């Protein structure tokens, strides 16, 4: 199966490993990621205002490119997924936004939200299947105690994102178990790490990160995984001490599949 792939700005730079292991693991699991040509940055935060249209156009262009190829669209970064999925929902549900975006873009055929958007983890759950993934594991991560950090953007608002139960998600824990590790469930796994606030206010992000890390440590996690470059940065940089190791989920995926070079 071939999917259109939107890596987003950070996967081309500071989060190269997130991208690299997503691609090679996809190959090993039997699906292909075909990068969208000339994509633009999605903006990293969803423009909530009804009168903002320019800030949504990069997402519409990407969605329309995938539509042109007749492919579903896959993202790996939580923020890209959040923004593009919500803009797609606007294009489906909101006539005013749809009309203005199409008037602006002057596409050959209007875009009306036809493309299906998947997060990479959804592909693993819904297309590959965690049972099949388990069978493909060459180096089970036995004995490792791994906490899933969902953060906010993968889950909320659940009415639009429809990724998992926003208050009690299980997808990343199921993923961890499929790789042979122990999944540590801790209360703060779906609370915000401070997001963009860490640029100007590190201490404030730090108090949020401390709560998350303390909660994970208390429950026995020895490492944390995330799908978001900003979460990874905040979890590593903000907060008091760098207590737990933090990785991208694709790193442990590639490791378990025997594809990670040390």
């Amino acid at each position: 199966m071939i999917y259109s792939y939107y890596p987003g700005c950070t996967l081309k730079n500071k989060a190269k490993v997130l991208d690299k292991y997503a691609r090679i693991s996809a190959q090993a699991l039997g699906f292909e990621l075909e990068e969208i040509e000339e994509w633009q940055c999605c903006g990293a935060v969803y423009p909530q205002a009804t009168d903002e249209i320019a800030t949504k156009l990069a997402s519409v262009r990407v969605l329309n490119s995938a539509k042109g190829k007749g492919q579903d669209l896959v993202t790996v970064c939580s923020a890209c997924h959040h923004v593009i999925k919500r803009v797609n929902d606007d294009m489906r549900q909101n006539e005013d936004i749809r009309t203005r975006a199409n008037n602006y873009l002057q596409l050959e055929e209007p875009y009306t939200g036809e493309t299906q958007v998947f997060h990479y983890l959804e592909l693993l759950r819904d297309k590959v299947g965690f049972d099949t993934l388990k069978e493909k594991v060459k180096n089970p991560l036995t004995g490792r105690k791994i906490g899933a950090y969902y953060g906010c953007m993968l889950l909320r608002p659940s009415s639009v994102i429809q990724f998992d139960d926003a208050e009690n998600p299980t997808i990343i824990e199921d993923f961890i178990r499929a790789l042979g590790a122990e999944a540590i469930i801790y209360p703060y796994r779906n609370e915000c790490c401070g997001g963009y606030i860490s640029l100007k206010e590190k201490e404030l992000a730090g108090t949020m990160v401390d709560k998350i890390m303390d909660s994970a440590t208390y429950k026995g996690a020895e490492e944390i995984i995330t799908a978001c470059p900003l979460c990874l940065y905040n979890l590593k940089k903000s907060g008091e001490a760098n207590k737990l190791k933090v990785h991208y989920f694709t790193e442990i995926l590639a490791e378990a599949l025997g594809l990670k070079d040390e």
Partner: protein
Amino acid sequence: MQKANTEQAQLVKEISNVDTRKCMKCGKCSASCPSYEEMDIRPHQFVSYVQNNKVNELMESTSLWKCLSCFACVERCPRDVKPARLIEAVRLMVIRQKGQNYLLPDEVPELLDEEVPQQLLASAFRKYSK
């Protein structure tokens, strides 16, 4: 007390597409908010201020710069009010005024370290500047 301003409140409602009358003042949004301690006007109060046309105070509020857009308030509101959208609308009314950007490119170099992800800069500029 600042003068009530129905026109501005109407603009907030339009930009946000939020119907503040749906709020039943249960406070769940504020209870869910990870930035609660930092906010001078808390999410549930924010809704009341808009409802009561007190937008000038909101435009001066620190809450505009403390809201993380984590959507906990949106997810957990039993009445689907979406307080985050109101905060976003007022924040935009401020930064759309000349000279009101909360982050200027000149400020950025000293905020950087070598691991800052591009996503952080992109999102901060989107939230703090025109």
